[in-house]
């Protein structure tokens, strides 16, 4: 993703996504591919996310990515809890090229850092409290040679 694309918000012609439409899977997790090429996952507020919910979301991510890798923004704002099994589903380097976590407040921060601790070595991963900062960081990380 380039800075120009982010500024204009115009879709990139070769963009392989499904038009950015949000899809909801088991447990209320929403997944969509956002122009210009960021995979978005939103955990529902106050939800207790279990392994099977995360697995369903991961399947959807794989379907949408069609064999390509994308930076992923996982929004866990105000989620109640995320099980260990659910954490282990995220951050697969075969599907995800970088991994930004978005939250709000100290509880989200703590939860997010458990995700970060579980993410595979070598995969760029960071917690943010601002969506814009997260998207910017993903753009920066993915543009690096």
């Amino acid at each position, binding site marked *: 993703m380039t800075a120009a694309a982010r500024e204009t918000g115009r879709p990139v012609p070769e963009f392989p996504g499904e038009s950015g439409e949000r899809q909801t899977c088991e447990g209320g997790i929403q997944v969509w591919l956002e122009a210009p090429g960021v995979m978005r996952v939103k955990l529902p507020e106050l939800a207790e996310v279990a392994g099977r919910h995360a697995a369903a979301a991961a399947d959807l991510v794989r379907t949408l990515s069609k064999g390509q890798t994308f930076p992923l923004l996982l929004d866990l704002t*105000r989620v*109640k*809890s995320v099980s*260990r099994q659910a954490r282990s589903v995220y951050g697969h380097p075969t599907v995800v090229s970088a991994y930004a976590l978005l939250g709000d*407040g*100290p*509880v*989200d*921060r*703590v*939860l997010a850092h*458990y995700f970060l601790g579980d993410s595979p070595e070598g995969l760029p991963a960071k917690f943010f409290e601002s969506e814009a900062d997260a998207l910017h960081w993903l753009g920066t990380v993915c543009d690096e040679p």
Partner: protein
Amino acid sequence: MSRDVGDPRLSELVEGIVRIAGGELDTRIKASAARDELDAVIAGFNLMAEELMVAQGELESRVKTRTAMLMDAYRKMELMALTDPLTQLRNRSALETALETSLAETEFGGAPALLLLDLDSFKGINDTLGHSAGDAVLKIVAERLRGCVRKADTVARLGGDEFAVVLQDTSVARAQRVARRIITALAQPVTVDDKELSVGASVGIATPRPDDSALDLMLYADTAMYSAKRDPSGSVVVFNPVMLSVRQMHSALAAELRQAIERNQLLLHHQPIVELATGALIGVEALVRWQHPLRGLLMPDEFIELAEEIGAMTDLTAWVLRTALAQVHQWRETLELDPRFTMRVNISATQLQRPELLDDVRHILATEDISASALVLELTESALVAGNEWDAYSFTGLRQLGVGLAVDDFGTGYSSISYLRTLPVDAVKLDRSLIGSPGDSAAQRPFIAAILQLVSACKLTATFEGVETREQAALLTDLGCESAQGYYFSRPVPAEQINADLLAQLGGTPWLVSDPVLSRQP
């Protein structure tokens, strides 16, 4: 000290930490809707508790797996340590353990019986057919032994051709029945390398007396087996305490025999071999004696078998050869010996099996400066008949060296007369039993004549043993027998009694003086 009781979540956190410390890793604390720093600590606490629980679970599972692997390896090692690798029977150590367990449970499980068995002539199978054939026989024996006992009984191979069976809760009579069943099972022909063999065994049986240990019982069974081996009538013998004292005496004698050579307690007596036609002393047979400090002069039949058993035969043979040839050397300096004079030394079947025998003989001949032709080794007929490639090696080597070979005690073995032709020897010593008792020499005449003719036809020279009377000597002379040996000429005597007087006395050929009885024979 002030105490902040403002927020109940703090108390819950303290309680939670206490429970975790007490091992309740499933402790979780409910966060509030505030999602403030304290809720963040609670979230962190819950996550850490979960991590801890998972880590401990993994650790426990890993410990369990590793312990199972270790136990499995231990069981395999234990099995290996308790199993005889060739036959897959239990080994000595496992047998001892089984026996100890049975003895400890005697009160409520009944007393066990121990059978020890040793295969007869197994060494012969190994020597003639090779070790792989021997191993095949041992495996078959193991299988048959297993087939003769119950599952609860223990069958073990103690080493070599020695086996043991622990029969649980078994009386002497029942143990004897099992032992006989084993003997019968082993007697069934065994086919190895297309050869049919028969395996015999000697069995010793022992049952425990109160307070007997496993080792006591093994000693008893071994003693009984030892007795069975020596008893030609019985291959199954039950232990009797008397056997122990006989064996202890035997062991004491064995220990003394080992020292007899270095303590100079052995000595040689010599029995003249006389040329019948001339009375010339053409040789002596060296006969070993043991001057025992307490038991007096012991004859070879009292200790040769023992020497074989304890592996002292090699040293004993070397001593006899050295002493006998040194004696020839000395006589040559003091006596006018016949140029054909030979020293006759008995050699056992086991010595013929030693490839080193040839070197020993060569070395001793050289050391004593005696030509090989002055030495004749006498071998029993059975040693020759049961010969194998090692015997053949020794025979060939000795003959090439120039050492004479003679069959001893011919007529007592089982070989056919025609076998005489194929024997790798130069001379035959005919056993005293062929000449009959002193009174009936005349009646034996045709029989002896036939034997002598046979020996001559085989191009062998004949020496008759056991000549006790003038009549026998005269008869043999008349029939053309070359030489003879026996009390009539001289008993076995110490070296100093082989002297000029004896030579003169024999030279007078008193047996050739005409006898009215003999002269009437055809």
